[in-house]
């Protein structure tokens, strides 16, 4: 059979299976097993456990559970509230202080967590009720946190960058650095929109934050210092010659656990178990999808589908930006339905050769890809962050959350366009810190 036609059949089968409501990881395994059985024969099934095990047999992957522990241990404390409260006290001169502080806190938290749901939950638990209490529109309150939470995978550390780095053999340290400036750019765009929409909703009172005395400003600082310490410590370990990025994750996880226990008195075994339970839940889910996506890509490669698609796209005589447009459209649609790691693992082997042949920088592409995945996190039907917000504030309807998030999706699209015009936004920092790209 023509591999391209076979590819279409695999795509249709995958969509049908995944929409049946089966879990994403098992769905990918079911589709892969079916096609391996039909085209490679029964005996090939004995490769399944070895491929699954082999995909996980990678030291860099270990950073995923650890960067998740970093986030979830801090998320179980009052740290999120402390972060935005401190920011608010210091940002009194800035109009719209509270929503700005919340977004800033999301960005800071993102620098301590590799995942988006944890970032969302940590800041949202305190931030959303506080914003609503002070009269911010529900849509702005929920949307800003949902969107701010997505920064978890753009601002380093990032689980998706690790997965991309492994899938494409790109330096993880370099990828992390590439996310910094686009992350800050997104924060800025989010802030501008939040201010505008709050102002537009008519309640100008909101834009005037309360005033704080210097005493109030300084007394909250000690509560924020540990987090700045973690961020600086992790960055130093990573770029200062102490540990590789994957090893650094363990240092970060240990530091965060210790701070949660010592400063926030998270001593109770029951509370500690909640931290471990939440991180186990998220990291096992992600790692199993990674393993399953590995089997899926084995199937695609074994049936020559990957190679044929790449060849076929190579023969298309189109402008490189038209090509990039289609790639992003594909990523966007895939991101609507699938969690980021699944999209990256299934798409990277096919897309990367095409992207590099067309003259795009793989580091730059990682950033664009990540922002695409962020859009997926706050869009239906599978938008992890939407569900997190729904869990935090059950009385805000999903529709309101969604409507509140849409403008932030627009901000992300603007960021992608800016990155296309100025690729240096992504590549400049890694080049400065680590020298020109390999």
């Amino acid at each position, binding site marked *: 059979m023509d591999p391209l036609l076979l590819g279409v059949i695999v795509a249709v089968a995958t969509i049908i299976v995944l929409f049946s409501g089966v879990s994403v990881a098992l769905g990918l395994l079911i589709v892969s097993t079916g096609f391996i059985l039909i085209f490679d024969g029964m*005996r*090939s099934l*004995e*490769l399944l456990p*070895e*491929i699954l095990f*082999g*995909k996980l*047999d990678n*030291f860099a992957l270990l950073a995923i559970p650890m960067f998740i522990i970093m986030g979830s241990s801090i998320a179980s404390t009052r740290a999120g509230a402390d972060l935005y409260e401190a920011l608010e006290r210091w940002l009194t001169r800035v109009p719209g202080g509270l929503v700005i502080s919340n977004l800033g806190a999301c960005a800071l938290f993102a620098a301590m967590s590799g995942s988006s749901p944890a970032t969302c939950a940590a800041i949202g638990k305190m931030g959303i009720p506080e914003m609503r209490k002070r009269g911010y529109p529900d849509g702005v309150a929920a949307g800003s946190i949902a969107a701010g939470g997505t920064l978890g995978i753009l601002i380093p550390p990032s689980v998706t960058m690790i997965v991309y780095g492994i899938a494409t*053999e790109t*330096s993880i*340290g*370099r990828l992390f650095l590439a996310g910094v400036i686009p992350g800050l750019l997104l924060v800025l765009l989010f802030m501008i929109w939040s201010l505008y929409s709050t102002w537009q909703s008519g309640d100008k009172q909101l834009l005037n934050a309360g005033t704080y005395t210097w005493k109030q400003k300084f007394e909250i600082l000690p509560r924020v210092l540990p987090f700045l310490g973690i961020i600086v410590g992790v960055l130093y370990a990573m*770029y*200062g*010659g*102490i*540990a*590789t990025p994957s090893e650094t994750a363990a240092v970060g996880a240990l530091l965060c656990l210790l701070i949660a226990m010592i400063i926030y008195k998270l001593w109770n075994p029951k509370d500690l178990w909640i931290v471990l339970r939440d991180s186990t839940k998220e990291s096992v889910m992600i790692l199993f999808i990674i393993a399953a996506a590995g089997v899926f890509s*084995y199937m695609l*490669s*074994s049936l*020559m589908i*990957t*190679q044929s698609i790449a060849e076929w796209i190579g023969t298309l005589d189109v402008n490189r930006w038209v090509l990039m447009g289609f790639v992003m459209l594909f990523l966007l649609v895939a991101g609507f339905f699938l969690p980021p790691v699944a999209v990256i693992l299934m798409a990277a*082997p096919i897309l990367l050769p095409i992207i590099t042949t067309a003259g795009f920088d793989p580091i730059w592409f990682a950033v664009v890809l990540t922002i695409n995945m962020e859009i997926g996190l706050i869009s239906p039907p599978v938008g992890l962050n939407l569900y997190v917000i729904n869990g935090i504030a059950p009385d805000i309807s999903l529709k309101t959350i969604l409507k509140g998030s849409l403008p932030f999706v627009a901000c992300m699209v603007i960021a992608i366009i800016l990155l296309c015009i100025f690729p240096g936004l992504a590549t400049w920092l890694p080049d400065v810190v*680590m*020298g020109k790209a*390999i």
Partner: protein
Amino acid sequence: EELRLSHQWSNTDIRHQVAQMVADGVAEADVDLEISIFGTQSLFKAREQYRPLSRGLLDMTVLPLSYAGGQQPAFNLTLMPGLVKNHDHAARLSASPFMEALEEKMADDDVMVLVHGYLAGGFVGKDACITSPSDVEGLQTRAAGKAFEQMLAGAGASITSMSSSEIYSAMQTGILNAANTSSSSFVSYRIYEQAACYTPAADVALWFMYQPLLMNKSTFDGLNEDQQAALMAAAAEAEAFYLEEAKKQDAASVAVFEEAGVEIAEMTIEDFEAWRALAQETSYQAFVEEVPDGQELLDMALAVE
């Protein structure tokens, strides 16, 4: 009929070229046989290839045989310090009773060799040159291969393990002071940007790794005579090419490092003997203890002039 060949390298790598030569040769012979090459680990990961090969679930592969050393400890002899002196010596080893003994062990796994071949490698130091055992003392070192780790540890180096793709950033940030791997990996990972000194494989070299093109034996036996003949003919041609190119790789890596302004050091015969004496006490010793017929195999290898 279609055969599937899997390997871990990019399509500019010499080992891909060897596979491609065999595939092209067979295609030209027009014996109704086609070889599809799956490079860059697109089918199996590097260390996951041997078992599917031995089970007949993969037809062919090009891989460092020592990757299967956990399954057949005797294969660890194919990455032993100081066992091979230079490329011509390597070619003589490939045609010796020693290799026949190893091929018997491969046959137990239903595996056979189509193309023999060794590739050489050297050392890089971040701050200083590494030629004799005393040079590595106290350095954080990444070595390619179990036997080299044992020998370097014996010389007082600290051993740390990481994938070869991590060497660059680990040397850059100072986690690593020295590394040992193949000439081509040094070039493809651009290690010359981070090293102060390079000790390449020259007249004598310590690091040789046996990286043959293997095939499942039952699959080969199942082919008709014309197909087998075409495969063998193509393989013979590829083996000659492999040997010539392997020699060029070392010189080419020296040129790249020189151009990058890296100091080039040379290992003398005395250095080589010192390393080998050390290896005898460490890696050879460990090998002989681990493998029942290890001493016999080692003697067979050492007997090759």
